[in-house]
């Protein structure tokens, strides 16, 4: 069933219960009655079969066409549903149920304008049509007309009372119009009155997208009791925990997934990156190795493994990992990771060629230029240094938010005896990232050369505080 198929189900049953069955053709009517029974038992397959027979006998019967369209919609066969519902509306344009079903089907098919046109028609002839109002609210949410969506959905509390997905859409709309508390209330209401693992998961996704990670964490956790895809769910929980700053909990969640053999590839990647960021690279590598065995065809897993191997200076292994990643899926990240690993492993000619190729393939990817520039600086030759400078400046042109090129360029200027230029690079870099200890250290050296001893000492103090925090983080995670 599709995500919103149950809306159809509710509408469909309502429709079928309220609808007069086919009158003209008695055999068709028998099939129709059987279809109703099947549908009420939840046997949509047989309901469909009976209705097809009925429609075959009475193809001009708009009610039968509407019913069949409804059943097909509930089964998720939206395209075919659309065909029958469109015919029904053509035959009986004044039938609000048929048009309403068609609109619901179009909404699910993503044909939002068509859905909206049909719903507008319905509401013009009957502004009190609550189902149409509800559907229009859902359509508006999909169209990102969040303010309108919220108004519409708020106005039909009776319908919303039975529609958990409606509450999710309402919460999403509230988030988008910066009514975070209302969004949270909507989700709390949902979980209080219509608790449902699937919907909790959806609610969690909506909260994540809105950056409300704590709410997402709560919602995802509440889905644990019934959400069928446990692996995916645990990953989302861990991701929400991580984004909410609960790193220890996030690691725990992911480690439990790993131990239970249900970690997703994304979960492995997140776990490895967290561990590596804390300085627990040996542990990260062990887990990356497990990930590579579990997901040998995941380019992301292999790239992550490669990055950890690079950090541990297992350069030959890093080259192998990145080469596998690139073979599976080409990306700028894999390309520059591979080239960097080749350089560090001593394969400099190959690395240079790989970087040049990456620049050709990804000419607007600033990270490629940045990585190439950084390794060239290790070369010590004047030509390499000149080229490195050009590459680093190009990286900044492509992405002005980068810190690393500024840092490298500052060091070059400082070594060349140009502290003012170095200062300019570093002060801007610090604006972009105040928590990088290296930047403060470098700036202290610049200030010292400019005769600004007090500023130099301040920067040294900042450097020492940040460095101590970095080292404490690494120590607590061997």
């Amino acid at each position, binding site marked *: 069933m599709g995500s919103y198929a149950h809306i159809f189900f509710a509408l469909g049953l309502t429709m079928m219960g309220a609808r007069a069955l086919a009158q003209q053709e008695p055999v068709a009517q028998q099939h129709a009655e059987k279809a109703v029974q099947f549908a009420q038992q939840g046997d949509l397959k047989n309901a469909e079969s009976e209705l097809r027979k009925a429609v075959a006998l009475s193809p001009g019967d708009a009610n039968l066409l509407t019913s069949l369209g409804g059943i097909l919609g509930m089964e998720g066969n939206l395209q075919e549903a659309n065909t029958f519902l469109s015919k029904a509306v053509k035959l009986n344009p004044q039938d609000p149920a048929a048009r309403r079903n068609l609109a619901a089907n179009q909404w699910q098919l993503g044909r939002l304008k068509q859905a909206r046109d049909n719903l507008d028609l319905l509401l013009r002839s009957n502004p009190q049509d609550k189902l149409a109002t509800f559907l229009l609210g859902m359509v508006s949410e999909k169209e990102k007309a969040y303010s309108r969506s919220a108004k519409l959905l708020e106005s039909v509390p009776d319908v919303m009372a039975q529609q958990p997905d409606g509450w999710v859409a309402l919460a999403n709309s509230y988030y988008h119009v910066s009514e975070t508390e209302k969004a949270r209330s909507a989700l709390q209401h949902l979980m209080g009155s219509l608790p449902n693992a699937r919907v909790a998961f959806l609610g969690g996704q909506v909260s994540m997208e809105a950056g409300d990670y704590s709410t997402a964490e709560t919602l995802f956790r509440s889905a644990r009791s019934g959400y069928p895809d446990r692996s995916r769910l645990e990953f989302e929980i861990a991701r929400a925990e991580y984004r909410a700053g609960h790193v220890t909990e996030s690691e725990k969640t992911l480690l439990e997934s790993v131990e239970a053999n249900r970690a997703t590839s994304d979960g492995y990647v997140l776990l490895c990156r967290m561990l590596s960021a804390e300085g627990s690279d040996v542990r990260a590598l062990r887990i990356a190795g497990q990930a590579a065995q579990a997901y040998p065809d995941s380019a992301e897993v292999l790239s992550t493994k490669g990055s950890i191997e690079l950090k541990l*200076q*297992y350069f*030959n*292994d890093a080259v192998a990992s990145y080469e596998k990643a690139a073979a599976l899926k080409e990306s700028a990240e894999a390309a520059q990771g591979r080239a960097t690993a080749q350089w560090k*492993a001593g394969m400099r000619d190959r690395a240079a060629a790989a970087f040049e190729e990456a620049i050709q393939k990804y000419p607007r990817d600033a990270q490629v230029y940045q990585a190439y520039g950084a390794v060239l600086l290790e070369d*010590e030759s004047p030509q390499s240094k000149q080229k490195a400078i050009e590459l680093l400046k190009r990286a900044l042109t492509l992405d002005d938010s980068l810190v690393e090129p500024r840092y490298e360029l500052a060091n070059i200027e400082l070594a060349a005896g140009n502290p003012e230029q170095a200062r300019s690079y570093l002060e801007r870099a610090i604006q972009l990232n105040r928590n990088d200890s290296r930047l403060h250290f*470098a700036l202290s*050296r610049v200030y010292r050369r400019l005769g600004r001893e007090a500023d130099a000492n301040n920067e*040294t103090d900042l450097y020492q505080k940040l460095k101590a925090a970095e080292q404490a983080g*690494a120590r607590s995670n061997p």
Partner: protein
Amino acid sequence: MQTGGKAGENLFTDITVSAGIHWKHTSGESKDRFLIESMGSGVALSDFDQDGLLDIFLVAGGETPGAKNAAPPRNALYRNLGGGRFEDISAKAGIARLPFYGMGVAAADYDNDGFPDLYITGYPSSGLYHNNGDGTFTDVTAKAGVSNAGRWGASAAWIDYDGDGRLDLFVANYAKFSFDGPQHCSYQVEPTYCAQTAYEGEPPRLYHNNGDGTFTDVTANAGLAKLVGRALGVIAIDVDGDGWPDLFVARDASPNLLLINKHNGTFEDAAMSAEVALNMDGNARAGMGVDAGDVTGNGWPALVVTNFNDEQHALFVHPGKFPFEDRTALSGLARLTKFFVGWGAQFLDYDNDGNLDLVLVNGHINEVIERTRRDVSYREPPLLLHNDGRGNFESMAQLAGPVFQRGFRGRGLAVGDLDNDGKPDVVFTCLNDSPVLLRNSVMDAGSWIGFQLQGTRSNRDAIGAKVIVSSGGRKLVRWITSGGSYLSSRDKRLIFGLGRNAAEQVQVEIHWPSGNVQTVLGLAPGRYHTILEQR
């Protein structure tokens, strides 16, 4: 640029075997991979019997729980017989065995009786061995109170920090360590030595020489107790030109220390403001060995520090005031040392052109390094680097001799004139292997003049003296230092290379540790001069 050597000649000749050196270091290498197994040991060059010939003392190393030998490790004291021959007299001298795992050695005459004594560092204690002057040594550790108990001592330096004419003792302590419960690290499934950051550092120790055969631990009073870190190398030298000896301490993944003598029994660490604590990224490197010398001819001591591969061995040039200038890249050292793990290092003027060159030894700690990358080896060649006089270095590998083209697990290193020909020779130790004796074979070395200083008000060894030689329009500045290199102790005599156009007579100005300044004129080059401090 003059290259300091001619095609076809070997600048240094390996005379280890012909010299009769058969001793081997014992590392206690075991499956447990205790870090101490990878650290090696030191060598001291000193004239222990005062017969005018430099002798060689080599520290044993030791056993580990998983690696016991039938014949326990022993030190070697090779007496220089002259003519390039040596004889091991360690057993006769009573200095063959240690009650601890031996690491470093600092030789100096701590009691000013004319015979150099030995302080040997190690784990879990260290020892002071008094030279009795009759070819024997006595363990006076307990009486002296310098056992450094419970600590892993690495390099040590003798320093008269309070100017009372007696040598005090600074011990660089490395890390908290125990043979119980080894740390386990591996690459894939192969056991490796863990990174040094797996071990917490220790503060150094400073012992004040009371002048009566005893010492007092003044670490806390001197302001040193809070300086916790993994110290490996140390050199005592006056870095700020105030006539009082300071200390530079190379530390392993801890910021280096530049301990400025405050003249009141205390030291203050100025490494951060002097910009010698860290690399340019604000990271501490794996500082192992250290030396100091005037490499640019500006009269101030530059510092060289050996580091791990990719970190480059650092050169900090002293411009006359702080901060130092990091000339690692500009000097060529970055390019020349990038792929090596460096240990012992010393400045020497191997060709006597008046410029201080550099010799250093390398060697990785983990064999698996060759499986993780292609550009770093486990066994690495030593380096002989020629200085053009402005602090720019070039490798002399092609001319230096076959030893400089082979890989070793090099560790300690000391420079000294073993044959008294005015050309400095080199001895370096190798992990779990024989040392290497290199005789300086430079054919057309410049003229030279050498000094053996003897303090009277100053400590007898004149450690801390600054010596300025004027010749042919040049002024050459050298210091008698203690510590330096890695775990090792060099010949305390000074050799000044005078180049090819040396004057017939040389003037020397000595700034004694006591504060005396003594000028001696009319000295003939081509020989050693013993100069007694005027009272």
